């Protein structure tokens, strides 16, 4: 039986997430856990003091057992995982308060690849701005800009594609449709 060092996976996947969030729009590699990239990210993020909501078909039972995180609803969860890029789900998550803006949801969406709408992305973590393609619709972009328009309130969003890559958007990222 193949031995898995979960803690090693966690530290490598965390570094990829930290790099992806500190440089929005950049692409980082992630390593799978139980043959799933989503579960690998879930295992990196979840622990007993946070809550999550998952909409999809992957089996979270082992992650529940390992991390002991609380299963919650989409309005209260700290982390929201979804097999598709769900605009309604994105609208539901909490954005924090002016006093505690960190009490907000982080989204992790699965997607096929990062191709999609062409955007100009700017904000902290980006040297000026650059043009890229994101796997989201124009409707999602306008919701993203709206939810993050009142800084420091907002959400972080990660996209995981089928090539074991992760891309992050911070609440400070500004998206402009090209």
């Amino acid at each position, binding site marked *: 039986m193949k031995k898995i060092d979960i803690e090693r996976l966690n530290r490598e996947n965390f570094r990829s997430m930290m790099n992806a969030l500190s440089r929005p729009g950049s692409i980082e590699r992630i390593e799978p856990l139980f043959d799933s990239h989503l579960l690998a990210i879930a295992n990196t993020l979840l622990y007993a003091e946070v809550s999550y909501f998952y909409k999809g078909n992957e089996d979270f039972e082992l992650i529940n057992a390992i991390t002991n995180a609380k299963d919650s609803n989409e309005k209260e969860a700290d982390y929201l995982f979804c097999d598709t890029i769900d605009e309604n789900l994105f609208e539901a998550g909490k954005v924090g*308060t002016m006093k505690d803006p960190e009490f907000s949801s982080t989204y992790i969406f699965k997607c096929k690849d990062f191709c999609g709408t062409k955007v100009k992305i700017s904000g*902290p973590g980006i040297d000026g701005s650059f043009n890229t393609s994101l796997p989201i619709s124009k409707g999602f972009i306008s919701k993203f800009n709206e939810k993050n328009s009142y800084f420091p309130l907002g959400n*972080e969003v990660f996209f995981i594609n089928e090539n074991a890559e992760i891309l992050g958007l911070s609440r400070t990222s500004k998206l402009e449709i090209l």
Partner: protein
Amino acid sequence: MRYAFLDEEAKKEIRRAILKAVAIPGYIVSFASREMPVARGWGTGGLQVTLSIINEQDTLKVIDQGCDGSVNAVNIRNFIKSVTNVETTTSTKEATIIQTRHRIPEIELSEKQTLVFQVPMPDILETVEPNTAKAKIMHANADYSKLWVLLYEDTSQFGDSRISNRYPVLVHNRYAMDPSPIPKYDTPKLHNSKALQLFGAGREKKIYAIPPYTKVEPLKFEDKEFKVENFEGRVCQRCGCENSFLDEVYDDEGKVHYYCNDTDYCDKNLNMKGQK
């Protein structure tokens, strides 16, 4: 022993705080600071941040006031090495993680590097508002009037701010932030840095961050220029450098000598001279 000393649950909590801090530049995120094998106030915040982000591919550098060889730096480097077995270096260029106490390295950092600061007092409002609950509300309202009053009092009485280090900065036009006790000379380096900058305060249980390429400005009246330490006419007696942050050292006869504060920078200058 576990990799990087901390248990996985502790690391996950610190990592969550780091991600939130990166997403909200300059905002102070609370975390449950753990007991470390060094006393609080000796860099436990920076240590916990480093231990939570480090992995097998990293090369670590630890400096204390620009020096790789001081007690604090040597012990922290040895400890991290003993619990992770990562490569260590004194070269700023080669390091992927640089843990620092009170200095930013002399040379410009790169995109692949992360600078981890050891922070004694994380909240800049502490100097003007000792009640932390009130200070949190002031941060929520971006109410920094008391800081401006402090600056105004200094400027009206002495012509300029008396703050010599730990100069307040405004991050991403929103949060007033304590840059840890770095000299004013280093304050401009926070702005638009290519490296990710993480700040950990173990005793105060706080983490905050400045992502790369983020606007960081010293709090200053529009008509007042931000002045840094002036070393004009002084050179490092070891390497001859004229444009670095210098230490003032008194010998037994009371004579003053000047040396580069950043020892790696000084060594590199000497090496280059030797090659010529």
